[in-house]
């Protein structure tokens, strides 16, 4: 157990080792570890945020779905109402139209009737003359009897 200059040499070595560790080993390693810790913390925070956002989005979707459903029901109700309205309107129009057609038909019939009567009336004279001719066996003077026949026609 002899103490000599080795002690001094060892102390210098020790001091240099500590200096080097302080300068080039410890700071970069601790910096890297701190960076990693920060990165992990950020990642966890981001995950938490993402979870929260997902929950928000789900809530929003549910809300949206509900409002869409309500709106669909409303649209269906409106459509039904409108359809009923259209049917009613169509019915009303059909009644009006049919009445008009019936009235037209009646008017046309009346017209045809008058026209036919007129034709019959004009033909009746000829027929009567023909009948009379037959009866009188051509002894009737048309000129003579014209006045009488016209009177008869007017009276018809």
């Amino acid at each position, binding site marked *: *157990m002899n*103490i*000599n*200059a*080795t*002690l*001094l*040499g*060892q*102390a210098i*070595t*020790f*001091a*240099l*080792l*500590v200096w*080097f*560790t*302080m300068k*080039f*080993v*410890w700071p*970069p*390693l*601790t910096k*890297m*570890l701190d*960076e*990693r810790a920060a*990165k992990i913390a950020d990642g966890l925070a981001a995950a938490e945020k993402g979870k929260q956002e997902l929950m928000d989005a789900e809530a929003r979707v549910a809300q949206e779905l509900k409002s869409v459903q309500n709106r669909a029901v409303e649209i269906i109700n409106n459509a039904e109402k409108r359809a009923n309205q259209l049917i009613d309107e169509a019915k009303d129009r059909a009644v009006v139209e049919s009445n008009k057609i019936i009235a037209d038909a009646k008017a046309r019939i009346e017209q045809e009737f008058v026209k036919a009567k007129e034709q019959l009336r004009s033909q009746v004279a000829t027929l009567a003359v023909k009948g009379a001719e037959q009866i009188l066996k051509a002894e009737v003077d048309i000129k003579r009897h014209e006045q009488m026949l016209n009177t008869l026609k007017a009276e018809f």
Partner: protein
Amino acid sequence: MLTTTEYIVHHLTHNNYSGVSDGVWSLHADTFTVSLILGFIFLSVFAIVAKRAKVENPGKFQLFIELILEMVQTQVTDIYHGKSRMIAPLSLTIFCWVFLMNLMDLLPVDLISFINISRGSPESHWRMVPSADINATFAMSISIFLLIIFYSIKAKGLFGWIKELFVAPFGAKLAPINFVFQMIELLSKPISLALRLFGNMYAGELIFILIALLPWGVQWILGTPWAIFHILIIILQAFVFMVLTIVYLSLAIEEH
């Protein structure tokens, strides 16, 4: 053929370089060389890992280095409550360097002598374990002792520290007793640090040498358990040296 005593003495004699002068100014070349090489190994491994350290996807070796670093950091932040840029790197250096020096104890005791003898220089001595050299352990503990004084003065001021040496723990009336107590406390720190490590490593080395004296067929019966037990001791001694350093330095900055 050496006698038992000669064998033990041979193994426990330093390679003493006394080219400049004998006595106090001679140098243990073995302690100096081995500890320097181990220091370079420690620094280059850590510096390379520190340079290539990645935040993401660290390799297994980087994780191992980080494990050591975080262990040291935990100890420092648990024990030392002041602010210092030096104490954590200091602790890391102590732990790794002391561990590597202790680790040399697990090399076969005759390995270096065998190489030396085969080179035809039976007289040359080589002790492989620097921490079993009291110069190495005292070099560290005296450096720490100076740091204790430095930190005390830094925290309390030169006058504050000197005053504390006389008034604590019994008050100003018992100043001489206080001073004696404080001196004992102060000086016991480096002595206990150095002798604890030296004693453990020296004893371990000696027992390995004694085991090596047994017949070769039965050496494993004692050698194996002692080597396994020694794995624990070398880590524990490195750890204890580091923790006590942190404790002493944290005591230095605290008021009595």
